[in-house]
């Protein structure tokens, strides 16, 4: 089978799969049966399409195949359990027309909200979203979440059991409930993006682009709930961050820090869209900024700046002050330190840093600040400390190089004297 043709088919069935699953869950009333049926339909497509070619209406093909598979599964279950017939479900499944778009729209929302139900543990929500909304396999999910396939399968099985046994409802929350329910959904999308954007350890060894999946989910959620400010802010944040990705590594795969990045490699269209979404989101929330809006606003400031030197660090510092006050985190604290250093001076940054808990990132930031005030030996020591902890391979190499550079600068003799 040709690789790229297979990939194209795989992407089509994955995207269509979520749509079809969303409606099928409601029709059969059981997540597991619906998922198995869609899975069997997808396998059938992956087997047939590379040979026969993709049918003119892949959605219709997959929908009807999944329904037939669901009927088969229900019949098998019925024979196994000796259950009485439930005709209504079968009549619904035997239909050959496609559900209208507004029905699919609500079904997709139901699927999103059941995956991100607050009664499920946060990592379970992420795993379920990757399984049902992104169509990833347990092995792929394990790669994204840095766990094992067996643990992921167990987590998914327990989640489906809980959904069924506790009757977690398959419904779209009422308008009044959305404010309570949306943070969990946005949290799933954001943590998925973070898992792809800033993995804690190791190489990006998995074949799944978690960032792209997160952007796709954010896009879908915003598309389904265009009037809600939070999904718009999450999408803005993801687009604005993702826009800079092409410049984060050079052609050798080495880390390029923000001050050195070739801004011509940033995705200008994504930045423009992110800024427009952020402005729209802020208007809809009447100026009461949440953590996503603040982070997006910070990313927008970077995206707007023509160069590192031209960045409005005073505004970025103000945004970080707000962010730290409403949603304190280590990452926000360190971002604030950098902003304060650029807006004021390294001494201010170092003083702020002393208030934060040490971590590998903390040591790396401290090293850069110490180097700025000429304390190169201390900077090299701080980097050695930061290398004690976990970091991605490119990040480790970057810190090694910085450490060597600072060691060099810390030597008492000038370079030309050492040549003789």
């Amino acid at each position, binding site marked *: 089978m040709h690789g790229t043709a297979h990939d194209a088919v795989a992407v089509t069935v994955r995207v269509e799969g979520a749509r079809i699953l969303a409606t099928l869950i409601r029709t059969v009333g059981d997540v597991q049966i619906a998922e198995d049926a869609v899975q069997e339909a997808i396998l059938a497509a992956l087997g047939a399409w590379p040979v026969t070619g993709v049918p003119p209406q892949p959605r219709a093909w997959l929908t009807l195949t999944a329904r037939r598979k669901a009927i088969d599964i229900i019949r098998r279950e019925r024979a196994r359990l000796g259950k009485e017939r439930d005709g209504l479900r079968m009549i619904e499944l035997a239909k050959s027309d496609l559900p209208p778009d507004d029905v699919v729209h609500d079904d997709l929302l139901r699927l999103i909200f059941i995956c991100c139900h607050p009664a499920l543990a946060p990592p379970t929500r992420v795993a379920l979203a990757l399984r049902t909304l992104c169509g990833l396999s347990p092995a792929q999910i394990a790669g994204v979440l840095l766990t094992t396939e067996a643990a992921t399968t167990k987590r998914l099985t327990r989640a489906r059991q809980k959904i069924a046994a*506790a009757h977690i409802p398959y419904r779209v929350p009422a308008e009044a409930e959305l404010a309570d329910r949306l943070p969990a959904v946005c949290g799933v999308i954001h943590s998925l993006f973070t898992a792809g954007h800033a993995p804690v350890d190791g190489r990006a060894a998995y074949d799944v682009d978690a960032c792209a999946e997160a952007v796709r989910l954010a896009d879908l959620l915003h598309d389904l709930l265009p009037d809600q400010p939070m999904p718009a802010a999450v999408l803005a944040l993801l687009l604005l961050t993702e826009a800079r990705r092409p410049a984060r590594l050079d052609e050798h795969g080495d880390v390029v820090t923000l001050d050195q990045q070739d801004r011509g490699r940033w995705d200008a269209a994504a930045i423009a869209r992110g800024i427009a979404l952020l402005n729209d989101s802020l208007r809809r929330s009447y100026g009461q900024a949440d953590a996503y809006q603040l982070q997006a606003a910070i990313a927008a400031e970077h995206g707007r700046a023509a160069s590192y030197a031209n960045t409005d660090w005073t505004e970025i510092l103000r945004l970080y002050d707000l962010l730290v006050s409403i949603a304190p985190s280590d990452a926000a604290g360190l971002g604030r330190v950098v902003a304060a250093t650029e807006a004021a001076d390294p001494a201010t940054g170092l003083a702020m840093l002393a208030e934060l808990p040490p971590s590998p990132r903390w040591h790396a930031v401290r090293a850069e600040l110490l180097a700025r005030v000429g304390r190169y030996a201390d900077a090299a020591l701080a980097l050695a400390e930061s290398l004690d902890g976990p970091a991605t391979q490119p990040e480790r190499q970057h810190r090694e190089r910085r450490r060597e550079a600072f060691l060099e600068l810390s030597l008492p003799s000038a370079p030309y004297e050492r040549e003789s």
Partner: protein
Amino acid sequence: MPQYLALTYTADVDWFSPEQASELAEYRQFAVDNAECLRASAVLHPTSTATVVRVEGARGGNVVTTDGPYAETKEALTGYYLLEAADLDEAVAISAQLPAAWAGAVEVRPVIASR
């Protein structure tokens, strides 16, 4: 309609002591407000009155009893409510009205439907 058992975990109190009177009244009010969906309920004597029963080996073995609760924890099982609700969201909404929800915790467990 699905059934759920809402177990209240709170400080290990004696419901008959005068200090508990106002809180006990709140539980009574909860039962009145939600009479339609409550199938059974009880508040329990404190864990100091509990007896743990074990049979050694297998059925028919020696019955061994120990004084006190099965597990010593800060929050003890102090009562239960068997309730009927359309789904988990509804069961959570009802359970959130129990004083234990803010004075401790309420564990909501789905009951296996008898066939």
